[in-house]
């Protein structure tokens, strides 16, 4: 296990360096003056240009600049937005809310998704199975902002069950509707993965064996079928997290959740490129890190992964 962790962490390093470098290159390797490009249709003052050039070390060569920039990121110096706020402070203020929203979404996605997937897998071809297949197909096809607006309009405005936008301090009760919207796409994937894997597992020899030695369904299903069916769901958590990041940007913007995604949403609308780049960089770093954690978790859950021979 220790060897697996070391190997996986070492593999993570080039991915981390490469992905931050790619974002950096996208901003600074394009033709033209990157500082001027960041301002878009606005005209910066001399002082603003000088400040940004100093911040991005534009007098150094490209690779030196990248490492200086990476150093800045690691020291927690993420720069300021056009209207003078510090990106660090924005992130510190907004991250807890996003974390709560994401947590709620992951809980909904796993509880509802695994339950529905298990039922439709066990009763393959039944009414519930057909309904689940159609509902998940529709959920997969709905872009997150369409779903968000429909939910906001229908449950928030027409029926009045939820507040259409999140109130001061983002209480948990206000976060439920955005979390359901955020969870919907991943939930559909979880239902389908669980279903497929339950069908496959229930045909495995050890399940027949369990039934054969007289165990009742209420023991075979949770202990033998479900536990072994959850491995693909765990593996897919990494992809889910990527969907969650993008979904959070849209959902938080629409429901006005005061989170990181909402900051990115507003920064995009303001054409505040330095802030966009800072937030995207942080999100990618978090994404790489979470991927690493999920891989390690996968190694814990499935011993076969740990012992791959080179």
């Amino acid at each position, binding site marked *: 296990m220790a060897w697996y962790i070391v190997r996986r962490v070492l593999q993570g390093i080039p991915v981390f360096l490469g992905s931050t470098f790619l974002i950096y290159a996208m901003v600074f390797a394009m033709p033209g003056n990157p500082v001027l490009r960041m301002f878009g249709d606005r005209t910066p003052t001399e002082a603003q240009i000088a400040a940004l050039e100093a911040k991005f070390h534009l007098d150094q060569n490209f690779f030196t600049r990248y490492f200086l920039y990476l150093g800045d990121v690691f020291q927690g110096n993420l720069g300021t937005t056009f209207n003078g706020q510090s990106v660090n402070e924005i992130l510190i203020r907004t991250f807890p809310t996003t974390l709560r929203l994401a947590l709620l979404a992951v809980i909904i996605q796993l509880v509802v998704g695994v339950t529905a997937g298990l039922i439709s897998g066990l009763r*393959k071809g039944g009414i519930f199975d057909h309904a689940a297949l159609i509902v998940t*197909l529709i959920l997969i096809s709905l872009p997150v902002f369409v779903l968000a607006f429909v939910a906001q309009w229908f449950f928030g405005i027409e029926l009045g069950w939820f507040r259409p936008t999140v109130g001061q301090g983002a209480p948990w009760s206000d976060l439920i509707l955005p979390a359901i919207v955020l969870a919907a796409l991943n939930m559909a994937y979880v239902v389908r993965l669980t279903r497929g894997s339950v069908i496959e597992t229930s045909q495995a020899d050890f399940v027949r064996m369990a039934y054969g030695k007289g165990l009742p369904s209420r023991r075979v299903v949770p202990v033998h079928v479900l536990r072994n069916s959850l491995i693909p769901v765990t593996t897919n958590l990494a992809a889910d997290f990527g969907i969650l990041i993008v979904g959070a940007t849209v959902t938080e913007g629409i429901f006005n959740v005061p989170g990181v995604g909402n900051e990115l949403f507003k920064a995009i609308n303001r054409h505040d490129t330095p802030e966009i780049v800072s937030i995207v960089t942080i999100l990618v770093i978090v994404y790489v890190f979470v991927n690493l954690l999920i891989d390690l978790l996968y190694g814990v859950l499935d011993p076969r992964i740990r012992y791959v021979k080179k």
Partner: protein
Amino acid sequence: MSRSNPVRQAPRYVAEVDEGGLGAVDAVRVSDRKSNLWLDAWRDLRGRWMFWISAVFIVFIVFVALFPGVFTQVPPNNDCYLANSNAGPQPGHPLGFTKQGCDVFSRIVHGTSTSLSVGVIVTVMVAVMGIVLGAFAGYFGGWLDSFLMRIGDIFFAIPYILAAVVIMSMFLHDRNIWIIALAIGFFSWPATARILRSEVLRVKQFDYVMASEALGLSKVRTMFLHVMPNSIAPVIVISTVGLAAAITAEATLSFLGVGLPNNIYMSWGNDISAAQVDLRTNPMTLIYPSIALSATVLAFIMLGETVREALDPKARAQR
């Protein structure tokens, strides 16, 4: 099919007793229908209503995209009067008007070609990059494989919409269909490359690959002539679903405000974004383009789904 205790049923291949002799076991029945992966898939697809619904709808969408003039005579952008702002349906304007007084139906019809072109350009680009890089990595192996796959890991580590947001915010003034397609596609090829690579690893063990090399074909020729055509099936599935994802991505970027310029291109994402301020008073302006967008995406996802089930016996067994 709902059994509480599933029993595995293995097919048994036993020669008929009255045929006798080993020859009967090995003989190829000439009268049998010809069959290969694609014919089998087609026979399976032919009988499925989901395939026909999605296929017919996609043909229809392509027709709308190519000939928008057949469906509406109203120009989408030049015939807008603020007097019509948020007005309801009128003769000749079946879906009413936007806040700017433009015809909703016409904007939806003309937006079809934008969505579809971005989808097709991204899909072709991703498929070509993924197939070439995946095939080289899988067939040649060794350091090239490690190198290409590590590069793929790096691109895979960035959620492609976030990357596209950064790229698009760098192009504020010269956004067009090609730039947005590049921004979406540039970061979504590793999934295709990985799938093709694993398929190539399977295919390259077959005898006909060895035969081809033994007959003196170069490695590159063998790869293009024999390995690639036989490992392309999963890529077709992922490309169909990828087309749907690219359409969603374009709409999402336009919705976020880093998509195509509103005054030159009709884009469903832009229209949805513009209609959100009137969600309380005039929700239909938002809902019509949303329906167009979701139905298009649904059609491609349904097609991908049915094709996957037709090509993959494992998925067929789970149906």
